[in-house]
C-alpha cells in the first residue's frame, strides 16, 4: 500500500480524469482516511460551486458581495505600502517623458519666442491710470451688461457681436446680432448693444 496522499495530490486527483493517476485511485480505494479526505474535498468543491452559482443567480446577492469586494479593495489601497505610491509616481513620470519624446519624434518643437500675455499695462509710469483700469476690470460684472428686451430675453454684449443666451419669451430661440445688423432687436435704439 502506498503512502497517504497529501492535499496537493488529493487536489490533483480531484481535477484529473477518471483514467488518470491509477495508483492514487487504488490507494483511495484501500485507505479509509484518504477516502474520507477526498470525499471532504469533493464536498467542499460542491459547496463552493453551488455558492458561486447561487450568488450569480441572485442579483441582489451579487451586488452586496461586489460592494463588499470594492470596500475591501479600498482598504487594501489604504494599507498599500509607500513603495506602491513611489512605483506609481515613477510610472507617471516615465509616461510623461515618453509622451514628450514621442511628440518630439513626430516633429513638434517648442516655439522660438514664447510671449506670455501679461495683464499689466505697458506704461509702468502711470500707476494711477493702471489702478483705475484694474478697478474697472474688477468691478465689471457681465451680468450688469445684460439688456432685457420687452419679451424678457437677455442679450449679453461682447465686443462686436451680441448673443442672447437666455430667452424668457415663448420661442426660446437663440438670437444673434451681426456686427452691421441694426434691424429689429439689434437696432441701437433697442439697447441690446453694449
Amino acid at each position, binding site marked *: 500500500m502506498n503512502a497517504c496522499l497529501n*492535499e*496537493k495530490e488529493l*487536489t*490533483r486527483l*480531484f*481535477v*484529473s*480524469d477518471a483514467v488518470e493517476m491509477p495508483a492514487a485511485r487504488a490507494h483511495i480505494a484501500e485507505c479509509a482516511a484518504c477516502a474520507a479526505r477526498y470525499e471532504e*474535498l469533493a*464536498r*467542499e*468543491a*460542491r*459547496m*463552493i*460551486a*453551488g*455558492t*458561486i*452559482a*447561487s*450568488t*450569480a*443567480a*441572485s*442579483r*441582489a*446577492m*451579487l*451586488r*452586496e*458581495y*461586489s*460592494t*463588499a*469586494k*470594492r470596500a*475591501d479593495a479600498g482598504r487594501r489601497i489604504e494599507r498599500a505600502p509607500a513603495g506602491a505610491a513611489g512605483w506609481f509616481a515613477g510610472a507617471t513620470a516615465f509616461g510623461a517623458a515618453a509622451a514628450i519624446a514621442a511628440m518630439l519624434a513626430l516633429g513638434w518643437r517648442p516655439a522660438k519666442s514664447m510671449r506670455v500675455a501679461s495683464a499689466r499695462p505697458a506704461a509702468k509710469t502711470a500707476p494711477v491710470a493702471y489702478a483705475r483700469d484694474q478697478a474697472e476690470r474688477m468691478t465689471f460684472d457681465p451680468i450688469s451688461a445684460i439688456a432685457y428686451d420687452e419679451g424678457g430675453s437677455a442679450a449679453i454684449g461682447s465686443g462686436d457681436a451680441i448673443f442672447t443666451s437666455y430667452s424668457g419669451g415663448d420661442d426660446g430661440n437663440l438670437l444673434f446680432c451681426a456686427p452691421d445688423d441694426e434691424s429689429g432687436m439689434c437696432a441701437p435704439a433697442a439697447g441690446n448693444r453694449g
Partner: protein
Amino acid sequence: MERTATQPSIESEIEFAQAGGGAPPELDEIYRQHHQRIVRLCRMMLSDADEGDEAAQEVFVRMLAQRRGGVEPAQWGAWLTRVAINACHDRRRSGWWKWWRRDGRELVDSDLTTHRDAEEEAITHEQGAAIWRGFSALSPRQREVFVLRQIEGWPTREVGAALNLTEQAVKLHLFRAVRRLREILRSER
C-alpha cells in the same frame, strides 16, 4: 412598430431593438430553456451582474441573428454556451476601463431562481461573500475553467476546446482555482 405600455421584458427588448419583429415560437422555447443558465454563466465569467446581463443579452441577439441567417446549430444549448464564452471574452477585452466607472445602480432582485441545497445552506453569509470575493479574484481563465468544469459539468476535453486550451492547462487552472477557493472557505471557518 409601436412599443406597448407594459414593462418590456428582455425578450421584447431584443425583439424591438434587434429583430424588428416577433421571434419564432421555437426560439421562445429555446430562450426559456437557456436564459437563466446563460445569464448566470455570463455573470460568473465576468463576476459582475450588469456586465453579465448585458453579455447574456448579446448572446440571445446573436441567437436571433443566427436563426435569421438560416443556419441552425445541432444543439442550441452548446451553441449558446460557446457564444456566451466568446461574448464574455470580447467584453472583458474591450471593457477593462469600465471597471473604473462602475456605479451602484439600484438593486433589483433577479427573476432567476436561487435554489440552495442543504450543503450550500451550511455556508454562512460571510463565507458566501468570501467565496465570491475569492472567485472574483481568480484569473479570468481560472474562473472560466471552474465554471465550465465544476458548475456546468463539462468534460475536460470540451472545456479545453471551448477555451482553446490544452487538457493539461485546463487541469492546471482548475487545480489552482480549487486550491484557492478551498483555502478561502477554510480560512472563514
